[in-house]
């Protein structure tokens, strides 16, 4: 427990071992965007012999999923046809394949007919994204703005400590770590288990960003306090190490409570929420890790200006 700081290059290495494969997958395959971001097709189906109460959105979604349309969003409604009220369903799915769209439609209609009786495909339209590019862009601009504001706030809040600017920059670097890690993991999960990036993903990412900085500040606050009560001969490395050890129970306990609630959501919360919770879990664990094992360690690296030695001799990890 005493040597957390002296092992700092090991911690950086662990981060890189997770981030680099993610970055490679991100570069090669990108994120698998869901219909919220990419748009797709909108099906309007009429169930001529059924009432709205006979339909089940989840069941219809499963039928679509079983026939090649995972992640379909189903809404049911009532329409009047020839003075008679019948059930209808509005289904948003990904784009139909360019090669055999008729074949795909037939498969779906046949599968639905087996369960619900006669099904008519009233219309099939291609639709744009529900989360506009503008929404994503303005979120990114807002996050950049927030970064600047946090940098200013932390520089002021840590003005009693030497080099206050470093705290803000290290906190933001740790946040960047979490964003890169989550995006990379999303790319990997998208490639292997088909995780799709949707509107929920955007809010999950914003949550991770704010929790990451939150976590880092708690550790930094201890460093600030211990620096102010610095005893003669105490070196910066030891102060950072003490601070981490002192805040460790709090970090672990807070993390545990989040993990408890998220795991409960993951296990009992139904299929639709699963991706959101998975991304949040990855992000929050990364946030705690980076606040202890990256943000605080970066302060030490900066204190010693260690980058001057990185390229001088051999591997940095042996430093």
């Amino acid at each position, binding site marked *: 427990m005493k040597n957390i700081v002296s092992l700092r290059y090991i911690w950086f290495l662990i981060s890189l071992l997770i981030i680099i494969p993610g970055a490679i997958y991100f570069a090669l395959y990108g994120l698998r965007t869901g219909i919220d971001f990419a748009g797709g097709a*909108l099906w309007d189906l009429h169930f001529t012999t059924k009432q709205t109460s006979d339909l*089940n*959105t*989840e069941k219809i979604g499963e039928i679509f999923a079983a026939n090649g349309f995972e992640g379909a969003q*189903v*809404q*049911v*409604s009532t329409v009047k046809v020839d003075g008679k009220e019948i059930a209808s369903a*509005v289904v948003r799915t990904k784009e139909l394949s360019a090669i055999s769209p008729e074949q795909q439609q037939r498969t779906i209609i046949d599968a639905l007919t087996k369960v619900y009786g006669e099904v008519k495909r009233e219309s099939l*339209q*291609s*639709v*744009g994204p*529900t*989360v*506009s590019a*503008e*929404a994503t862009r*303005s*979120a990114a601009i*807002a*996050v950049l703005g*927030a970064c600047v504001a*946090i940098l200013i706030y*932390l520089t002021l809040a840590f003005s009693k400590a030497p080099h206050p600017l470093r705290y803000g920059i290290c906190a933001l670097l740790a946040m960047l770590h979490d964003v890169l890690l989550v995006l990379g993991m999303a790319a990997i999960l998208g490639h292997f288990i088909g995780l799709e990036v949707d*509107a*929920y993903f*955007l*809010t*999950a990412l*914003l*949550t991770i*960003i*704010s929790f990451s*900085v*939150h976590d880092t*500040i708690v550790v930094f*606050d201890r460093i600030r*306090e211990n620096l102010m009560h610095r005893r003669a001969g105490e070196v910066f490395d030891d102060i950072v190490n*003490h601070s981490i050890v002192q805040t460790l*129970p*709090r970090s672990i*306990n*807070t993390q*545990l*409570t989040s993990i408890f*609630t*998220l*795991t*409960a*959501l993951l*296990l*009992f*919360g*139904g299929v*639709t*929420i699963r991706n*959101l*919770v998975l991304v*949040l879990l990855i992000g929050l664990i990364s946030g705690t890790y980076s606040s202890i094992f990256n943000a605080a360690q970066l302060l030490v690296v900066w204190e010693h200006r260690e980058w001057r030695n990185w390229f001088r001799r051999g591997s940095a990890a042996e430093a």
Partner: protein
Amino acid sequence: MRNREIVPFLFIMLITALCGWIAFAPDNTWLGRDVSVRLGLDLQGGTQVLMKADGVVDKDIMATAATVIERRVNGLGVSEAIVQLSGTDRIIVELPGVRDPEKAIETLRGTGRLEFIDTKGQFLNDGTIVRTSGNPEPKMPEVDASKPVDPANPQPTVSAEVYQSITDGRDLDTRQVSLRVANDKISAQPAVSFAFTGQSASDLATFTAANIQKPMCIALDNVIVSCPVVQSALIGGSGEITTSTREDAEKILNQLKYGSLPITLSIESSRTVSATLGANSVQASIVAGMVGLIIVALFMIIYYRLPGLLATIALIIYAIIIYAVHKFIPITLTLSGIAGFILSIGLAVDANVLIFARLKEELRNKRSLLRAVDAGFDEAWPAIRDSSASTLITSAILFVFGNSFGVSLIKGFALTLALGILLSLFTAVVVTRTFLRLIVRNGALQSLWLYEISNDPDLQEQSAV
């Protein structure tokens, strides 16, 4: 001495009772205000409207139209709506839980083209449809044959004459459109103020200077909204539209503020649609949230003993308050909102954990219980303050951006986050602290075991520090 805790204690009880009243209000009405829970499209469904562009339009114009509509939806105060392009010439709008969908749709599809027209000194009645040089072929109102003709309010007719437009709707400076709130008796009428720029501004100034004491008509989407008499030249191209009701003023504001629609849209269909998530998955999320809460409570009590128990009570108070606030504002709850709600419990726990960790340290340093409680709070405060402040900064910036870009997804997130932070501060710093002090001061429950100090397995850790 005891009074110092009694006042905050009574304050906490009062707030909790008030919020409990809102949270569990019978019939979801509280003092005449509707406080039912607003659920998003994914949880409750809503009204789906399919709008079709008249004539042939290109892709970019449709995209602009969708953006304008999205901003207007947000201007209506409807959160978490969906605006989606469909095919080449349609826009789908889904509004969660809107009471009066028809009225909302009318506001959305108005093109918002504001024109000043030269009527050659003629007064025109409000509601008259006019042909203007800017748009000589206005869209006719759809005649509803099923309704009998109302003699008091006959179908508006369209002017035969084509009036000269003085201004071009594209020159309207949308940043300067604002609602003038009537706060004195003289200008009791609600009004929307606006300003033109460029050519329209100078044309308007020239026209008004030449026509003082003559009427000049203002048309919105070729419908006369008012014909004020020119009192003085409108230098700088700014002016006002007065309306008889605040609702009218808000509707005009909404149509002008978020830019004019580049095309005319007609409504193809409108229907009620169900939630995208089945009732099962909503139920499952609630169960999961409950299970999570119970585990957190057990963990807190087992690990922190008496303070943990008090924190759990504080958490319950937190949950009641935040639920009441969601109902009161109201904030539209979506699935990600519920996940955020559950996660914000983590925030509330975090502040408590920070304080208790300090409390334990102080007790190990052989401070008296009361001094340890106070010291624990004081020592933990800078960390809580700075971490909360930075999260509040983040949420404030997200809110401002979400608001000005009309992105309700981001705005809603920011609001939930800020509320979570502020209320968790209140529960940890005020509620838990008051409870702890109340108990400690009254001399009850002094055994250090309750504060998890004896047989502490972590003592080695302390000696390491």
